[in-house]
């Protein structure tokens, strides 16, 4: 019973959103029959498509840079001992904790002060949003990679060294395969975080650089047509698919190899 309640409570709004994306009614208040036409409409909406490509580009570059920065941070924290290390570890986690609205405002002021140009050509016009996304994505990557590194058996590294491998070969053949599932999972996470972000993006965007969540929001301000529902459903599906892949990788890759 409690289970049913929580499921209804959690998912009823989303299910309603998905169902009403097929509603054959402009007002979208009552059910008027099944149709795909608002999906067609959404997919023909050039502004929405443009926002979609912006979102994907930002998510892609965010993932790439977050992965590099997060992995390097995790390796640094794992491998080296230095003074104030615990302080450094704490500072890295701060972007996860502080309210997005604060990050948004802070970045707005920051970019203003440093005079970041606004009229760059594509894709450089997305650089502000991408930088902002990297800021809150890479700590997640660092945390995931760090946790994975903690399970690494250091004797394997010594064994590889003993067998004549140099540090590059050890990284490539021993450490990287161990990290691979965490790298995939954390990049999927960074990708979805970026794809779904609204608050911080809202402060960073301009007329040329709108993303899917922002576009949907602006559409809602005019009227809640099934087209909004359709666009939201597509975003939802992409997010769910990425999360599912992440979970599947975590389950199969890691457990298959490392069962005792």
């Amino acid at each position, binding site marked *: 019973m409690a289970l049913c309640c929580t499921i209804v409570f959690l998912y009823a709004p989303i299910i309603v959103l998905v169902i009403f994306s097929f509603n054959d009614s402009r007002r979208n208040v009552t059910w008027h029959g099944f149709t795909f036409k608002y999906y067609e409409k959404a997919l023909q909406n050039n502004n929405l498509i443009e926002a979609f490509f912006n979102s994907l580009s930002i998510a892609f570059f965010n993932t790439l840079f977050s992965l590099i920065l997060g992995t390097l941070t995790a390796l640094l924290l794992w491998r080296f001992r230095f003074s104030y290390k615990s302080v450094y570890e704490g500072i890295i986690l701060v972007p996860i904790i502080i309210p997005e609205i604060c990050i948004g405002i802070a970045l707005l002021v920051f970019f203003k002060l440093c005079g970041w140009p606004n009229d760059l050509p594509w894709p450089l016009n997305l650089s502000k949003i991408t930088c902002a996304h990297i800021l809150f994505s890479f700590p997640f990557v660092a945390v995931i990679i760090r946790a994975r590194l903690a399970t690494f058996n250091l004797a394997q590294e*010594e*064994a590889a*060294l003993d*067998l*004549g*491998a*140099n540090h590059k070969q050890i990284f490539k053949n021993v450490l990287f395969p*161990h990290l691979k599932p965490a790298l995939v999972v954390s990049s999927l996470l960074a990708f979805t975080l970026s794809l779904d972000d609204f608050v911080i993006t809202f402060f960073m965007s301009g007329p040329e650089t709108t993303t899917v969540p922002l576009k949907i929001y602006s559409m809602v301000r005019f009227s809640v047509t099934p087209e909004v529902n359709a666009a939201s459903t597509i975003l939802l599906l992409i997010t769910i698919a990425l999360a599912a892949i992440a979970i599947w990788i975590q389950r199969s890759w890691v457990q298959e*190899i490392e069962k005792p």
Partner: protein
Amino acid sequence: MGARDRKTMNRSIVQLKGISKNYGTLEAIKEIDLDIFEGEFFSIIGPSGCGKTTLLRVLAGFEIPDSGSLYIENINMQNVPPNKRSINMVFQSYALFPHMNVLDNVAFGLKVDGVARDEQARRVKSMLSLVKLSGLENRLPQQLSGGQLQRVALARALIKKPQVLLLDEPLSALDAKLRNEMRQELIRLQKNLGITFILITHDQQEALSMADRIAVMNEGTIQQVASPSDLYEFPSNKFVADFIGSINFIGCQLSEIDGDVFKVITRISKDAFTVEGNNSLRIGQDCWLGIRPEKINFEDADVVNSHHNKLSGVVKNITYFGQASMYHVEVTGEKTATINVMENHSQRSRHTTNKVGDSVVLCWSIESSSLFTS
């Protein structure tokens, strides 16, 4: 295994000269001098925390000694990193690469050296057949049993044809039966390949049954280096005597020196014993008489031997092992001490020779005991 032929070796392949290593204030190993000969099966044994693992890591190159020098094949290893040493190691946890199958694990050392693919394949094949793993090439480590993992670890280390193979407690994770099998296997491999094996263990049975020579370590220093039988029969100090096998220690005072033969008075019963000498002792000095349980006999009225040392006591307890029984005999004088006596059951019988509560006289010959400083 004591009967195994001593090879014509005695050419040092590993030399340690005054090696020390500290961790903070803890002196893990102190001024170690050691020569290990080409082609021998050498074992380093000691209680946990004695520094044997540190010594092994110094040999492999994972630890840099604070002082002293290490030579392998007469080359100073000071600035030679682990991946440039002709030494390979079998890790206690095996440390196989979990994402690689048996073939890739074994081939790893050749792959990183850039050995041609066809030669890699040829050498892996012959190595796998040597360690009896043919047919398991495509298994992942998690699909293998403990014994098979051990063989993969061995094959992976041996494929590089090292001059020295280090084995860190290699049998500790195996069950008793498999351990026995692997002991024979290791001896066979060592003989076939002629590679110097250095085995680190805390298990004296393992060391005694496999090694040509054994170094006993305690508190960061080497106590004695000797063949298994020398170590057992002629331990050079009380620690070695106590660590290898079981032994009785009887507190004594040296009263008389007559050439090689020493006379001592026991502190418990004031009996006098005649013992083979220990040159580091002076008259009047306190010492320990060490005698192994199987070297003590019960006095038999029919056999008279004036050379035998005698001590009387009462049987307090008997532990029955099947092939032998251990008597716990209490000797009372000014103080009370328990002496363990091992009696082999060479004849079939339903009863042990003596029963609990019997008064017995223990005796042993001059040659079978040793004297140690306190």
